[in-house]
């Protein structure tokens, strides 16, 4: 279970407070969506969960399975099952996709005290899971994300997620830059990972993604805190009324 308790986050350098007392609980087996206008703190929340150090948590706490993650390094959080699908997946010149995937999988296995994957086992897994996402192994011989289209980058993120089998998936605007077909493939990939052992936090501007990945709960994030929560119908309401209702002063 993910529990975020009265979280306050500022930008490390400027000290501007972006998240101002955010509380949220996502039980395992559930998919929660976070919607909100630009600048409401959605991406900050995603990055803080993953442990990016450009931000400072000034108060509050983030608990994953009952343990605070605030003192954990990003790689420790990953080993604890937290995965962030990036809004803008980064291009890594020179590092082949397969090398990257294998290094990541083995690093996490090592952190959990498991042995390294054999080459045939690794390739078999990659081929199987890649196939479901229309990702060819040839594509993974190329450097990570370099020269990939927007859709390819997002599919590659979901493939990483499928291979690393995290228990908390944070998807930061995974729908941005996707056409309808790519959106469907990516959503199917995400839906295939829905499981009673897994919690998901889907961050998005638009209701459209939630037609494909149907959430158990929808939260509206504006001005640094959750303004309203509800079931999936809340997303439809927002689609009609917009975020104006939440845009006033705190």
């Amino acid at each position, binding site marked *: 279970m993910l529990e975020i308790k009265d979280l306050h986050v500022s930008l490390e350098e400027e000290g501007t407070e972006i998240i101002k007392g955010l509380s949220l609980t996502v039980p395992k087996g559930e998919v929660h969506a976070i919607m909100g206008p630009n600048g409401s703190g959605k991406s900050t929340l995603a990055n803080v969960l993953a442990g990016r150090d450009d931000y400072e948590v000034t108060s509050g706490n983030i608990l994953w399975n009952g343990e605070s993650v605030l003192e954990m*390094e990003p790689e420790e959080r990953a*080993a604890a099952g937290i995965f962030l699908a990036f809004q803008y997946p980064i291009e*890594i010149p020179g590092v082949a996709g397969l090398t990257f995937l294998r290094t990541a999988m083995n690093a*996490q296995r090592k952190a959990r005290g498991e042995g390294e994957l054999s080459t045939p086992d690794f390739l078999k897994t990659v081929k199987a899971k890649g196939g479901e996402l229309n990702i060819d192994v040839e594509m993974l011989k190329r450097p990570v994300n370099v020269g990939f289209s927007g859709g390819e980058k997002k599919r590659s993120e979901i493939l990483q997620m499928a291979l690393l089998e995290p228990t908390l998936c944070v998807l930061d605007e995974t729908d941005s830059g996707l056409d309808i077909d790519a959106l469907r493939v990516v959503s199917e990939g995400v839906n295939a990972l829905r499981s009673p052992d897994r919690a998901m936090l889907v961050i998005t501007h638009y209701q459209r993604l939630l037609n494909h990945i149907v959430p158990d709960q929808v939260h509206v994030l504006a001005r640094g805190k959750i303004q309203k929560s509800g079931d999936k119908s809340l997303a439809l309401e927002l689609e009609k009324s917009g975020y104006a209702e939440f845009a006033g002063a705190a």
Partner: protein
Amino acid sequence: MNVAIAKTAAEKALGERFEDVHGKLPGGDDVADVRRKAFGVLMALGLPHRRVEEWKYTDLRARLKSVGMIDPDHRASLAASKLDTALGPLADVQAVRVVLVDGVYSAELSTRELPDAIKITPLSEALAADASVLTGENALQREADESVVALNTAFATDGAVIEIATGATVAKPIMLVQVRSGDEARISATRNVVKVGAGAKVTLVEAIVSVGDASATADDGAVLNTATRISVGDGAHVTHVSSNTDRGAVHLGTWSADIGAETVYRPFYFSASPALARNQLFLTFAGEGAALDASGCFLARGREHIDNTLLIDHAVPACESRELFKGVLDDTARGIFQGKVVVRKIAQKTDGKQMAQALMLSPTCEFDSKPELEIYADDVVCGHGSTCAEIDPDLVFYFRSRGIPEATARALLMESFVGEAIEQIEDEPVADAISELARGWLNDLRADAA
């Protein structure tokens, strides 16, 4: 008016060494004349210093406090196993070996059975016949105005004369191994002449190493001066790799190349932790339609200093030159790239590109990059670029968010960064060995940081 500069201790020592040993250096009277003339050039110019434009960033005069001994009669014995250890991954490359120990040809360690297409003669043997191996078409470029070149001619003790037959495809690389042994500081000068026949295809590797007990350092005057005269016949295809892993010593290396029409010449320079290395390439395009692909990887930390200086002369039309140098610098190390390309008036349709990039791991390391273009023709495509940067923290975060520890992430990023240069080596076993040497260096860096 010329201002006479007082000689430094190292310059004085060079003068004394020459007087002591010149009678014992290989060759007859004609060779002695060539040496004396070169020595005169060396003494007149002195060691290169920062007011010599091409040596602006490598002030050898200031850096070289002393020079070690020269003993033309010195014959070190070295076990083959020790040599293999010194070569590291390069020992596994199946190659024809020519081995020079402390500047002297070792018949024992060199490959005896040579393929028909290859002829190798020790330089000392060639000099015993006459001076022609040092003169005329075999003379190095810049004999008259470059003191490191003059030093080589004056002091050369041995080396290899390598001839590749016309049209031959040489399956195994030819590996010229220069090994430093013993605990005495020596200054060695070796000279090689390589003639690649028209249409031949060959990979040459120059491996500069030291065996474990070579404890003398640059501060003691441990210096290796190597020079290679290479002529590449029309239509030949040559991969020419230098790998310098002799930690602690000074290496002054000169390759002087003439490449014929329709040739492909691919020099590569790998330098890992020398005290000071100067890799200089003087190349002249001698025939149309030739392609030069020069690249390198430099790895330095501590006070180490690596200087890659190229002078490419597009003397004929329609040739292509590429330069790609990448390096990693830490502590107060210094990397230098000077990639001068001259395009003569006649050299229309020249296509030249230069790129030099450094990853800087500390705020105190230094990268001096000087791409230079001197263009006299008007129908050419030339460009240059250079970057220096820290490791991108966004990239590191991406790795870490996938569970990869920071140190591993940084090592992988550095490896892939220099890998883009190393993959320019077409000979796969050699490229693999160089990659492994680079990985070893990066792993040491990581282990020492932990």
